């Protein structure tokens, strides 16, 4: 079943900011097995010129997860999440994410299409600070296998 084309071009701002915590950064760094001191040692991060711990770059996916899921699980979109795999992902960082950040996410549906019997959806999520300054832009394609 094709995905709902009415979603294309629309913004789906998520109403709750993601508050980046010290322990969440440490937990994420442990989960990816990365012992970079800037992810776990607050003094080291400050000595390197950051206000607090630096998040691993792909921590951005944790920041946008709820906002993206809210959109993807909207029944009107018609995405069968049971058969979804990740097609591609790109991040553009306007600055590093650090502990203490309060980040708002607004996903946009850039495209929906059918390719080789699969439903594809391309998302772009703009992550901003409370002043509206851009922090990260995340581009991702999800593939629902065999539904298109």
């Amino acid at each position, binding site marked *: 079943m094709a995905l709902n084309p009415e979603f294309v071009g629309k913004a789906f701002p998520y109403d709750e900011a993601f508050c980046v915590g010290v322990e*969440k950064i440490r937990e994420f760094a442990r*989960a*990816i097995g990365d012992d970079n001191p800037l992810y776990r040692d607050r003094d080291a991060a400050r000595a390197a010129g*950051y206000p607090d711990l*630096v998040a691993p*770059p792909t921590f951005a*996916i944790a920041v946008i997860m709820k906002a993206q899921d809210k959109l993807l699980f909207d029944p009107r979109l018609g995405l069968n999440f049971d058969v979804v795999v990740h097609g*591609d992902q790109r991040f553009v960082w306007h600055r590093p994410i650090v502990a203490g950040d309060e980040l708002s996410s607004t996903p946009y549906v850039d495209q929906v299409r059918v390719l080789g019997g699969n439903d594809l959806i391309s998302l772009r999520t703009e992550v901003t600070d409370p002043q509206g300054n851009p922090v990260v832009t995340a581009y991702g394609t999800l593939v629902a*296998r065999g539904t298109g």
Partner: protein
Amino acid sequence: MTPALADLTVGDVLPTLSYRVTRKQLVQYAGAAGDFNAIHWNQRVATDVGLPDVIAHGMFTMASALRIVTDWLGDPGLVKQYEVRFTRPVVVADDDQGAEVQVSAVVGALDPEAGTARIDITSKFNGQTVLGKARATVALA
């Protein structure tokens, strides 16, 4: 020490990296990232949707591959862009060994005007690449 742009040449090879991923780590990553898709921890669900077994989160593989760049840089804040295509899954068996992934990287392009280098990353599981077009752009002085 962070490498200097002027000291780099296209084709320069970064120190290689290999890592193991186990079921336990996938559960840990699911919690850390908030991605609880069952194909990453439940064999029944994974095989029901046609996968050979539980597979690693694409984002786990993406994150782990970038470590070759951030280990080399020291400062992860220098990474400006990073993109991958998920071409093959990393299959993680239900044992203590898990899956071993080999990561290598080369300097793919230099842009002295922008002050950036493009690093091209190769990530292999069972001798086959699992990420396509994996490229990070880093800012260097």
